């Protein structure tokens, strides 16, 4: 058993190196409908990708703990390996070798199935993401649509976990989680639509190539909406109400331990990595070639990941009614207005520059849209700075407060 684990750790450490060796070669896999069984290359690619993801997940747990520790005047884990970099692997081994506990009154089958339901959509999401330029398991034309569709299945796993645990804390976490995940998908998808409008494609690689100007400058509002919607999708602060540790202990995964907990816990970081990659591809300009391009993409991803870690280290949590109100009363109208304005701008530049609908916009049309949008964004910030108490929608208890016996 220990030998097996050791081999696993070595494998996880070695694979990123393999990945980098492959990075300079010609595109490994061009998975189209014609060559579904592209021989051994497909499995090598799959193996490399999944090993890389496991490596990243384990490392991210360490990175977050170190970063947040610095924000908290602590040192953080520094015992396992140089600077404690192997802490994530030590935790993983500990969790895997623990006893697999299932509560007596839990629904055993669904309880065991839920972590898989939570993890598999997130793994599937990476099929279309170009981690290396030209390296995708499936170069789908509906890439971003697929990402949104497949990750929304995760809420099913969250609810299954919460319901099957047969614990009130878990049930509360599950109910909160589903309400939140469903709400935040609306502004998220609407904001992604503006990017699709601008680039004229759903394919992630084509979206990246369409960015003559990085879309973060063209669409700052959509960037912020997507950033916070994703924070809500990932259950990260300030929207971590479904695993709020100070209220409902650990939410939907209160009863989980051992390997199952490792799956759920790892998925959080894997999903954070995946969504950060998507945001980096959607907003931070072209994908470069070779190892340089890969490292550049990782650097862009790290910026988003750092933002998520930073949120977690500093921000308090908002209440459930405030979370839903922010989604439906602020983000949803903002995203809708944004999509209308973007569509109008695109029609405008298309008529000026004589671009056929469906073709990618060039540099000059994008520059015009950028200037208009940045002015509008500045205006929005000025308006928001005058608004006090954005989150205060629900004032005062609705229920009659009964008198306390024995007082007065």
């Amino acid at each position, binding site marked *: 058993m220990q030998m097996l684990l050791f081999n696993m750790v070595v494998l996880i450490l070695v694979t990123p190196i393999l990945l980098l060796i492959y990075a300079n070669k010609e595109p490994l896999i061009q998975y189209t409908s014609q060559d579904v069984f592209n021989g051994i290359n497909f499995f090598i690619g799959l193996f490399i990708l999944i090993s890389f993801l496991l490596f990243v997940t384990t490392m991210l747990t360490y990175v977050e703990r170190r970063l947040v520790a610095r924000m908290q005047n602590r040192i953080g884990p520094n015992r396992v390996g140089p600077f404690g970099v192997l802490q994530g692997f030590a935790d993983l081994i500990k969790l895997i070798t623990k006893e697999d506990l299932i509560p007596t009154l839990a629904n055993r089958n669904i309880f065991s199935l839920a972590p898989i339901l939570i993890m598999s959509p997130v793994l599937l999401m990476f099929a279309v993401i170009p981690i290396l330029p030209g390296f995708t398991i499936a170069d789908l034309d509906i890439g971003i649509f697929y990402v949104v569709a497949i990750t929304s299945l995760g809420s099913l796993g969250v609810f299954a976990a919460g319901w099957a645990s047969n614990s009130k804390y878990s049930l509360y976490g599950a109910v909160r989680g589903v309400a939140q995940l469903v709400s935040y998908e609306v502004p998220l998808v609407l904001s992604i639509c503006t990017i699709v409008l601008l680039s004229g494609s759903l394919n992630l690689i084509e979206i990246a190539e369409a960015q003559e100007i990085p879309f973060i400058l063209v669409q700052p509002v959509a960037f912020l909406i997507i950033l916070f919607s994703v924070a809500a999708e990932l259950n990260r602060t300030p929207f971590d109400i479904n695993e709020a540790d100070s209220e409902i202990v650990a939410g939907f995964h209160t009863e989980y331990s051992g390997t199952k907990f490792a799956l759920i816990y790892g998925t959080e970081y894997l999903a954070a990595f995946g969504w950060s990659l998507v945001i980096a591809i959607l907003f931070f300009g072209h994908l470069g070639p070779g190892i340089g391009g890969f490292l550049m993409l990782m650097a862009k991803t790290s910026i988003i990941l750092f933002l998520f870690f930073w949120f977690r280290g500093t921000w308090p949590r908002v209440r459930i009614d405030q979370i839903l109100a922010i989604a439906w009363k602020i983000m949803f109208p903002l995203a809708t207005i944004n999509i209308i304005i973007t569509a109008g701008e695109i029609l405008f530049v298309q008529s000026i520059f004589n671009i056929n609908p469906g073709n990618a916009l060039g540099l000059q049309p994008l520059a015009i849209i950028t200037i208009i949008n940045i002015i509008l964004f500045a205006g929005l910030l000025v308006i928001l700075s005058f608004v006090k*108490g954005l989150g*205060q929608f629900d004032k005062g208890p609705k229920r009659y407060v009964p008198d306390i016996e024995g007082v007065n």
Partner: protein
Amino acid sequence: MSQGNESMNESEKNIGGTESVLLNLGPQHPSTHGVFRLRTLLDGEEVVDVEPILGYLHRGSSKLAEERSYTQIITLTDRLDYLAGMSNNLAYISALEKLTDVEPPERARYLRVIMVELMRIASHLMGIGFLINDLGAWITPLMHMFREREKILDLFEMVCGARITFSYMRLGGVSHDLPEGFEKSIAEFLDDFEKKIEEYENLLLGNEIILSRMVGVAPLAGERAINCSITGPNLRASGVDWDLRKQDPYEIYDQLDFSVPLGENGDNWDRMVVRIEEMKESVHILRQCMDKLPQGPYRADTDFFVRPPEGEAYGMVEAPKGELGFYLVSDGSIAPYRMGIRSPSFINLTVLRELCVGWKLADIIVNFGTLDINVGEVDR
């Protein structure tokens, strides 16, 4: 506040055709500040009823006191509100000094006030830190508050060697005089701490999420607070100007210049801001005390096994969490015949149900956090 077996009001169980959920917060829960249980009845996220269930940390302090000499009882008081041991010591000693008519020397009085005010800062730091932690800010604010508290505990360690359970106050004075270098250390701490308070204010008071979670949430009217016997910062947050340091000055508070910060609405926000303001006032008091600190003996000459005359006495001080009172009955022997404790944390809980009903589940934790109770003092 009855024990847990009593059933909730039947008419409130079924609301709108749905059944309410009975949820036990505690005794093992991350944010009940100790082994404390809240039996809550919830309609979805909304709170229908809250019932604190006490006694998980009961140690029988007042009964134990009947078998110990008056000096030994000091160690028991340390363990009541373990975040404010000095204040507990002072409350007990003030009752004992009323019983025995011992007058402490002037220097001892100053030393006591210095220690108690340092303790107040430490206790409020913990209160605010845990409160923001309850709001969901992981533990970052708490760790920052711990940083300052450590410095205060270092000062205490310089003075009496202990960091939590001090047993510093004695009948007619204090156990140790100030060590060499204490004045320099405390001056450094105060200079540093004033900057840190500014930092906290910048970080906490402008945060939109904290504002939206706390402003206007769970208000408590001043009259209601008086009727529920609330004391301490919670009472002053409701706008009631009642501070024993002003109203019934003990030790040397009548010679010091300080103001009592008041809130307006008594909501969660006011309860937090009043504590921050009190820390500033404490710094002001500490500076005055260090300037005026007289030379002389730090302890009156008393017997170790003191035998007070028959009678009874009640001593009270403004502890960080409210009015802390000790009631001693003497039968002339070396141990008290009876000791009673008025602990502010316990009595402040009276109002918890009223604050929480009608708000959300997440607000219970915050309302509970702003009351700033200590389970060691609730259960005694």
